[in-house]
């Protein structure tokens, strides 16, 4: 029964990974990451991915802030100096967002995404960066939406994956006295 579930979990995991690879959500870099997981760091992948999520969330927040900061600032102006609303909106359209800063954030996000093999996120980042290079605010906003969507998707899927892995490890631990046994052959 337990062995069956272990196999089952492994199959589930592989299937999920296969789907993710097929969809292009992940690429082989993720496998590299998995290779780094060994006895000395049994939760390496999930740790890294968690840090990645943590960082990315921050970066996404920053990106959002950078995109919306001009609005917010103009609004502040509107509130303080009683600038007209239309002026505010004009200002937002006219004034450049800080695309330079945005690019830095994007590079960060792109770097870490490619490091964990989040291919689709990385691609969206590239598109985003292209939009920001062209000072294309609507494009940036769209890209940001997409980025957030992709991020959520990736997060959910990887959480699912880690959950299965955790169950699998638990099952393996119950099954076998030596819990590290199966960890020597990482999933591919």
């Amino acid at each position, binding site marked *: 029964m337990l062995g069956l579930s272990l196999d089952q979990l492994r199959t589930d995991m592989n299937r999920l990974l296969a789907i993710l690879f097929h969809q292009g959500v992940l690429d082989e870099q993720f496998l590299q990451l998995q290779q780094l997981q060994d006895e000395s760091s049994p939760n390496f992948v999930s740790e890294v991915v968690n840090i990645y999520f943590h960082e990315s969330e921050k970066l996404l927040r920053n990106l959002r802030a950078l995109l919306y900061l001009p609005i917010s600032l103009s609004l502040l102006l509107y509130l303080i100096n009683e600038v007209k609303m239309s002026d505010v909106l004009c200002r937002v359209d006219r004034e450049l967002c800080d695309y330079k800063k945005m690019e830095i954030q994007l590079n*960060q996000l792109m770097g870490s995404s*490619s490091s964990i093999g989040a291919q689709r996120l990385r691609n969206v980042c590239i598109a985003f960066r292209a939009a920001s290079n062209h000072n294309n605010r609507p494009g940036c906003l769209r890209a940001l939406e997409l980025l957030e969507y992709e991020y959520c998707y990736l997060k959910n899927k990887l959480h699912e994956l880690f959950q299965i892995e955790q169950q699998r490890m638990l099952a393996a631990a119950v099954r076998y006295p030596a819990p590290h046994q199966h960890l020597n052959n990482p999933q591919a």
Partner: protein
Amino acid sequence: MGCVIETIESEEMDIVLSSMWPEDMNEAGRQFNVERPGVDKDMLEEVTIKREPDIVDFKRLIELANFTDKGNWQLANLVRNWEYKQENAVRLLREELDTLSKQQREVELKKLEILEEHRFERDGYGGNKRPISILDENLKYLYQDAPRRKRDSVFQDEKISVDAEYDSVVYWKQQAMNLEKLLEASLRREQVLIGKLQESIEKLEKQSTPVEELSQVLNRADNFLHFVLQNAPVVIGHQDKELRYRFIFNHFPSLREEDIIGKTDVEIFTGSGVKESQDFKQEVLEKGLPAKREITFETELFGSKTFLIYVEPVFSKAGETIGVNYMGMEVTDQVRKREKMAKIREEMAVQKAKETELTKTIHITEESMRAKEMLATMSHEIRSPLSGVVSMAEILSNTKLDKEQRQQVNVMISSGDLVLRIINDILDFSKVESGVMKLEAAKFRPREVVKHVLQTAAASLQKLLTLEGNIADDVPVEVIGDVLRIRQILTNLVSNAIKFTHKGKVGIKLYVVPEPRNLSKQKSWKASADHSTESPNTRKDSSVSRSTGDQRGSHGCCEGEGIDDNNELKNTLDDQDRDGIPMEEDEASHSNMEESVVWICCDVYDTGIGIPEHAIPTLFKKYTQAGADTARKYGGTGLGLAICKQLVELMGGQLTVSSIENKGSTFTFILPYKVSSISESSDDPDELSDMDSQELSDDEDLHAGVFQFQPRTLGLLSSQSSGRIQKLLPITYGFDPSQSFNGLLEDSSSPSSSITYKEISSEEDVHSAAMDTSSVVEVSPSQNLCSSNLDSAENNEQTHCSSEISDPSVSQERCRTQAQTDRSSECASRKGNEAAKAEVKPKILLVEDNKINVIVTKSMMKQLGHDIDVVNNGAEAVRAVQCNVYDFILMDVCMPVMDGLQATRLIRSFEETGSWDDAVKAGIELAAQHSSPNLLPRKRTPIIAMTANALSESAEDCYANGMDSFVSKPVNFQNLKQCLQQYVPQ
């Protein structure tokens, strides 16, 4: 000519003609003029005119006819017309005569023929055709009685029939007799014709004189005029030089001739408009130019009527004005309609204006809705990242930091806090302004609110101040109001008071007052507030002295004194603000208790710097502070008081201030609260326990009926509430102890603060829990003074850990971050220590700002058997290279502070020259010991770029800047291995 006319004018004409007027009285430009006399009533037989409405001064008319050009011209016209007619008649007669003579000739000829011929045959008499008149047929109407060819046949067309045999005697006899008869007939005809001719001649003689003709014409014209004018609402008149009426035609005459002729308007009528018309006529008379004007008359005679008056001057031959012609038409209806129209138009305009106003309002509403959305966006978009910044900074402050860094972090936190507060202020303010803010009605306990406010204030207090709260026992235990806002007001006022108070105390006093009468008159209230600056001396003094008394009283826990104080304050207040309103304190307040609404007055007083008198009027304006100096010295947006005032007024109360410079100020606000009926019976202990479980001491106070809020000072409560704005940053709660500890590290440089703490800790009314923390607090200064930085950091970590235990769910994530930070800082700090081990393993430096990349690369290197140092940007890399010798550098290209390319350039430059001058030039602060060991140029360190295919990091750039190779990101085992094999000989 003149004499002819005179005869015409003077003669009475009685000839009645048919009233038919020739439509084409053929002379061009013929006009009839009302100046012509037309008095004859007989001519109105066909057209029934009720009454002859025109009244004429004939003498004047004659004068006019004689002396004005117009008159002359018109007379000339008439004469010309008459002459023409006469000519016409003569021509007709002549024709007739011609015809007759022709006939006569023919008859004679015939006679001759008859005589000549034997046979008398019937001959066609050509003259039996009517001669064609050269005049138009229409003229027959005019000249009906004019001479005309008669149509009656003069001779019969009879045949002479002879029955007798031809050439017999009988025949000839008969023939002769017949001829005789014919001859007779012919003679008879001739006689008839002659008679007719005679008759005609007689008639011609009898034919009318030009005068008759003219008078006929004129009569007809007159008739026609009457006919036309008979129903027209027109008045036509002529007035002489003195504006006396000489002629007037009025369809509805209400005055007789003698009443009008020879009189002026003013003499005839009374009422408004008469004078105006008179003046107008006078004006025309003087100017000599015709003019039109609309004049509304309001006379007894014909009521209110509007006339359009046309006045034209009449000139004599010499060119002088000798009078005016005047024509008026009643246009009352039109005017009324016009006015109605104008009104409607006006209404339409108003409607339109309203409409535009409405659209504007809609627009504004839409805009304000958008603004609302924007507000929401802003509050989210600015606040959330900012709170992120602040909380992260707080986390940072709990990590190992040296003193300078800690200071910096603290500055960061406090500035972040300030920005947050400002944003909140602005948001609040604009919310109130735009009417977005809604008040909530919730039950709350004023005592608790005051206590919490003071607690919060005490927690962040960095001065040696006494904070006290004093709540009169007539204040209900529970009231209903918007507790958040009230808290906000109190907090604002208290923090304001604390800000401007350096020694002494800040306090809150609550007591019930009767409903202020002058609340509706906000302005007068304001004025009284302004004015109150003159007279508060007594009050202020008393309050100051009283508050010292309070302090004493609170130390001694003397209830009676507290009450007395309240009463005293009330008295002073009443004397000052509500002159002459009799007050029975307790009775009044008790009766208020029974009502559903109770007015509670709240004083927030301090012994601070006070407010100069001149600044008080502008005190509550937004973005203003008492003075530029104050703003510079104490900071702040100047929004706080404005918000307070707005909030108070929003809740239906009023906020006032009184102050003496350098002695202190008192902000007083009065607010109505509903009293919950339950709270009246709040003696029930069950209910109390039901309510938000608070300290027992409060309940005891309730039971006692007298509430004494102990004066609190900072140390007492510092452990209970967060040093930061609690509601904004609940996450920081777990760190509070350590945080206040941090703050203390800062403050402890001055000995006074430590004394403060000691004093505080000696206070008797201390929680056991609070005691623990405060003891830690007490120890910390000495620790800081005598122990090293490291120790304090350890201490810090301890506190950190303990707080983590207390709040594991929140801190889990943070712990990881913490660990991470530690790790990286460890790396950095290890550099120096591990310099000795460099020979054993190749020393590898990773320059990378991306955490994930760092982790991944690091663990890959670890699997490959290498330990690496990590720095986060180019500048750090340069510093690291300065301190250590590396065998291999992996350098990210895109990095904050300094990118990989520049760092590489600097390192290369150092390697070539042996000096870090370029780096110094680039603005990198280098470690102090750099000069001694690194004088000699080093060997070239392989630097491998890590690129992510970004536009800015092409391979050429890498090589150009002195890099040896590059690996594309993300790094994987393969390319790492490759690189290592190539550049790190093992």
